[in-house]
């Protein structure tokens, strides 16, 4: 009997696997370690301390940037998830229409177009609006983040909708539920893990964004990532490590929750 091909038995499999994981996680591991450094260097270990976490916590600029990041991420994920639900319904629950593939491609556009292109485009577009209206608030960042968060929210919601049994919605319609009640009573209760997963993914993506934010933000509108980037240009202290470690913690938590939600049974 022919033996099945087993990649684990190829020579060097273990070595390659170990090297890959070390390359992937060693830098992150070091970043976390040095966030607890008692000294001011991000390369020389001088003992354990919480000082950089305390320092970051007390830093007013960090506080403001964090709050700004959270506000933007909240609105961007809320708006993009709402739009993503509508888009997902339109692309899975309607009769096949002409240009459906094109619509699908347009929704996912931010995933393919280089981020820098979107950033420059938004910069120019918002500049025109700023001139016309005089408004310079946070809305530009919220809109920009919403735009690139849509596909991230859309994909898990669409996947969930496709996985759902269409007969359930038909059964509800058969039992005298008009379309809107079918949605609220049958579709939505089963879709919520997908919606939550999409929202969380969008939240993390928004929280993490540098390029588009850097281009779109007005003066004094630093988010946490752009603030950190700004800091790195000057003196680098383990404070940046501390902030990164906290962000990492938030992301990991959300990704774990996202995976768990995606696996919830329909």
């Amino acid at each position: 009997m022919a033996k099945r091909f087993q990649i684990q038995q190829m020579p060097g499999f273990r070595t390659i696997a170990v090297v890959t994981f070390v390359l992937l996680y060693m830098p992150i591991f070091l970043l976390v370690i040095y966030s607890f450094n008692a000294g001011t260097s991000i390369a020389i270990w001088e003992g354990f301390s919480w000082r950089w976490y305390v320092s970051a916590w007390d830093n007013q600029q960090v506080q403001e940037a964090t709050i700004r990041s959270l506000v933007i991420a909240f609105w961007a994920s809320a708006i993009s998830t709402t739009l993503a639900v509508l888009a997902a319904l339109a692309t899975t629950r309607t009769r096949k229409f002409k240009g459906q593939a094109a619509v699908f491609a347009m929704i996912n556009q931010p995933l393919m177009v280089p981020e820098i292109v979107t950033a420059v485009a938004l910069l120019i577009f918002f500049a025109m609006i700023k001139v016309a209206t005089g408004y310079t608030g946070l809305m530009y960042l919220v809109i920009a983040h919403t735009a690139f968060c849509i596909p991230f929210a859309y994909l898990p919601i669409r996947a969930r909708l496709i996985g759902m049994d269409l007969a359930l919605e038909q059964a509800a319609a058969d039992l005298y539920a008009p379309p809107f009640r079918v949605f609220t009573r049958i579709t939505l209760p089963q879709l919520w893990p997908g919606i939550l997963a999409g929202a969380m993914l969008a939240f993390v993506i928004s929280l993490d964004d540098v390029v588009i934010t850097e281009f779109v933000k007005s003066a004094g509108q630093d988010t946490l990532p752009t603030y950190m980037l700004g800091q790195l240009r000057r003196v680098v202290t383990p404070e940046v490590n501390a902030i990164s470690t906290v962000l990492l913690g938030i992301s990991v938590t959300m990704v774990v929750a996202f995976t768990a939600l995606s696996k919830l049974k329909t």
Partner: protein
Amino acid sequence: MTAAAISARNLRKVYPGSPDVVALADASIDIQDNEFFTLLGPSGCGKTTLLRMIAGFEHPTSGTLTMHGEDLTNLPPYKRPVNTVFQSYALFPHLTVAQNIGFGLEMLGKPKDEIKKTVGEMMELVKMSQMADRQTGQISGGQQQRVALARALAPRPKVLLLDEPLSALDFKLRKDMQLELKRLQTETGITFIFVTHDQEEALTMSDRIAVMSAGTIRQIGGPRDIYDRPAERFVADFIGDTNFVPAQIAANTGNDAQVTLSSGKTVTAKMPEGAALTGKVTLAVRPEHASIGAEAAGLLPGRLSEIVYFGTDTHFHVALDDGTGFVVRSQNRPNETLPFSTGDRISVDFAPGVGQVLRD
């Protein structure tokens, strides 16, 4: 005369494509009140399309559909007094058994205490009273089937549609549910329209059966009509086992005809309704309606090629002299010794009026 519970006129469904797919080709049908009506046919024959059209999930390309004389054709599913038992049951996974059964009544805006009362009665009717607060994932396939039935019956629809609801059940459970469905139909007095590809299900439960093939209705009639008097080859072939015997019409007297068989002998056969057939025809003879005997005695001489014992009955495979095969089925009796053995010269016989001339 009151209008039929469901009346379809020239219903047609074409799925555009290249080439177009005709799922239903001008089907017309009248289903009466309190009837257990079955749409029977192989997969792809259009039976499910017709059912889904009555439910409102499919819109006909042309034709009309009325219920007690009222036009249903353009009514959405939620406005039709019709409920469906789905093949997959389609129970709402996030609701309990009782909430599933009460869903239709809730959507109709019935008062809470009335819903509670009806749900209780329904659970009693399908013997699920102990399971009210279970999640639908925690009950067996047979129980899910009962819940699906109760859910569809609870709003007291004028017509209940059943889309192959028994196909997912194992043999024993399916037998029980056949009787159960018949009992429910009799008790509730609701018109049942049942879709199946299983001829036995159709024969045991139905008041009337419509046999469908390739998007058209081939024959409508009671189980006995369909079985004993199939109008055409497809129906005779699809339902039960049949011998097809080549014959020549000697004299046509309307309901009956004298037909001459390949052996030269003549026998009386039934004619399909409204068919003016002459010349060469095919005769359908059920295996259990024929017998074997001494070579000179019967209608069709041949050689006994095989004897297959089935417990309840024995199948005699005969190689007729005209080159065709014929199977005779005879019920076994205790302490029986067979008068013939394999290789014997024998003949096949059947009584006048047993053979059915087929419209081809």
